[in-house]
């Protein structure tokens, strides 16, 4: 069985016919070729699949694509093109707040969500704010620095 799905992804209207069991992150990656969102665990723990759905941060591996009917979805690709997360990206590069980069798209979404709610967070608030996103490479210190730097910029 397949269902029709229409939504907006990174500002573009998208329609597709998909299996209802397909998760949103797989839909983005496999159907739309938006491979910037990653699947690190597929059970809602690691945060690598974090994206924005109707302005809220969502784990793309926990949401079915069909649940996004009519929604407005933003991924790292769109957020990059609009410049919405440019300050964070610049700080991440300057501070080497990524190594393998696999966690980074999700981490940037988490950081942007944090800064939107709290534009001048303390280090502790940043550590708490991104605690739902695993990074296996950096040990987090540089990520905290980069978010702090972006918040000050």
């Amino acid at each position, binding site marked *: 069985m397949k269902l029709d799905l229409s939504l907006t992804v990174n500002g573009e209207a998208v329609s597709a016919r998909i299996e209802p069991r397909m998760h949103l992150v797989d839909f983005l990656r496999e159907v739309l070729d938006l491979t910037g969102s990653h699947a690190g665990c597929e059970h809602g723990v690691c945060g690598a699949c974090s994206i924005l759905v109707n302005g809220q941060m969502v784990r793309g591996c926990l949401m079915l694509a069909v649940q996004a009917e009519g929604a407005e979805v933003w991924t790292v690709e769109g957020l*990059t093109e609009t410049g919405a997360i440019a300050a964070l990206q610049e700080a991440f590069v300057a501070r080497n707040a990524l*190594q*393998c980069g*696999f966690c980074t798209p999700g981490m940037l979404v988490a950081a942007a969500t944090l800064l939107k709610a709290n534009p001048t967070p303390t280090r502790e608030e*940043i550590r708490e704010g991104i605690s739902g996103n695993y990074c296996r490479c950096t040990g*987090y210190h540089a*990520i905290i620095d980069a978010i702090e730097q972006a918040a000050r910029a």
Partner: protein
Amino acid sequence: MNELSSVDRPNSYIGRSVPRPNAKRLVAGRGQYVDDLRLPRMVHVAFLRSPHAHARILSIDSTAAKAAPGVVRVVTGAEMAAVCTPWVGVLHHLKGLKSAPQHALVVDRACWQGEPVVAVVARTRAEAEDAVGLVEVAWQELPAAVDMEAALATGTPVIHPDLGDNLAFTREHVGGEPDACFADAESVVVQAVFHTGRHTGVCLEGRAILADYNPAEGRLTAYHSNQAPHMMQTVFAKHLGLREGDVRVVCRDVGGSYGIKVHVYPDEMATAALSKMLGRPVKFAADRMEGMVSDIHARDHRIAARAAVTKDGVITAMEIDDLTGIGPYSVYPRTSAVEGNQVVNLCGGPYGLRGYKARTTVVFQNKTPTCQYRAVGHPIATTVTEGLVDLAAEAIGMDPAEIRRRNLLADDVYPFRNLAGLAFEGLSHHACLTKLLAMMDYEGLKAERDALRAKGVYRGIGIASFIELTNPSPFMYGIGGARISAMDGATVRLDPDGSVAIASGVTEQGQGTEAMLAQIVAGAVGVDLSRVRVTTGDTETTPYGGGTWASRGAGIGGEAALQAGNALREQILVIAGAMLQAAPESLDVRGDAVVDRDTGAERLPLEELGRIVYFRGDTLPKDLPRELVATRHYTPKDYPFAFTNGAQASYLEVDVETGFVKLLRHWCVEDCGTVINPMLVDEQIRGGVVQGLGGALLEHCVYSPEGQLLTGSLADYLLPMSGEMPDIAVAHVETPTKESALGAKGAGEAGTAGAPAAVQNAINDALRPFGARVFAQPFTPARILPALGKI
């Protein structure tokens, strides 16, 4: 020609914290990890894995699976064995190491829960997984050998009857006079039994391979999330009946590796074999649950250890008895005996002992195979050694920093060979410890700890000195018969527009390999960093090399790049000399131009030199060499390994009611020789520290008595999260290796080597008022509360 080292050159990038060239792509979501790639006619494989720790296959019925939607092929172990030959993970120099032939798919008997049994290939991964659920395997469950302590006991099933017993490897080493030291009536003997919990790497990107066998050419191209493409080229060729030259391995972006992605995995071999069988691209991307039972595990050790110390604080001897369970097979081709062997080599490493005795016993068991994971053996040896040193200090009433000062090898004894037989070219234990104590304000911290203790707040300070093996020579694997290159190469080329291309055999998984290479070559040639681009991770286009493991990227790959860059600069200057009617020695390359060496005055832009050489060679003297490309290789020859050293400290608080540990601060001072990019090195240290902290406090592969992994998802297997990790201060002492012009040693593993020991010692410092101690990692409340007598 005057041969300046890169470090001396006016336009050197050595020692500068420039950002990585590939980072911009990754923050924009434009990485190319294996699962992002898609090829025409590509199909997907999913595996039925053994649900049992030990079980015989009675029959397999794949009728329903074959008829399922989208299914292309279902392959059993017997069919797979006809295409992919089995392997045996032994090395000749690890004398007596034995293992059994391991197949890509189980042929008749599964030996761990998670071993791949049947491969199902379908149009999509979801369809393949659906069909896996339809494969019917009739199993005869067999008694399992799970507990490593019982592996050699009578009554425990022998996993591979042909091998006689469950003993894979054992080695004992005695140096100096340990027995006399322990018998000395004036000395105090301290002892403990340490456990380092079995854990694993959990690369955020799971293992993945996209294998594309093209029958028209008889060639296999494997896009692989891997650290050692040339090694895999050899392995694929050997076991799939291809010539090495007909296998190409491409490693684009790799989403974390840490030693996990440098081994031969049966499911990845099966994927390559399936591509050969089907003549079309086959993709395998391990999901997290299957990764937890099939990625290598590590550090499953029990170590009984003791040390003798004189009343005035001289540690005279250590004795180590290590037992480790490695799963049912020694992993190919690096083997699973290296970790235990390293424990024998490394314990006591920072100290000048009079007696040393160490033994490892490596046993088979029905659990996921273990093998080399970041800092192989070092976190274990450091935990044991530094735990003993703190016990010795306590026994004689000496400050932990003071006892280290009295026993660490002096900074001027080098070169030095220790009782374990390790050769040290030049270490800086005292300089590192002194810097560490100053950085952390040791005396101030002790006062704070004591003042808080009076108020019922239990904080602890833990120190750990360590050594770390880097820049391995062929003594690591090559002498044991493995085709794992200790040499690495770099090709450096000047293109017509004056830009420089580097191709290197070392690989990038986020450490900053490509940035490091670019910095070295930009400085050596004399061009701006922005004019340099780097290719790694492709057996077809890079010089042969070992890849990235054992902290060898900068020390070996970087030195090859430096030599190649120097050679290219010489080529440029010879041609420029002819064009300018000047002696090549009077010229240099700086800022994208050939300049007068003494005045720095610009003589000829590189772009113009490129134009003439490539398009107007008719205007150059006939016999002038026109090569603008140089390849150089490098292998360490003087020392088997370039040891590094350092010291770490942890400051933490134990909640004595709940048993929870709160990390407050962490410090690391280490000496990796020449630091090429301080920012990247510091981040390697920090990332390594946190992986060490994970193993010390959280990560644990817990098994049921039947051999079922109980922590098989990230909901149960805990990883360090940002909220519970401390800020980590990093500093360096630089003792360059004299073996190479660059002087760099490795930095990728030092953080992991020392962190668990520092935490262990800090927890035991915090618990000291209660007379409680813990030596079993991870140090969870379930271990701390019993030590406190609370449960």
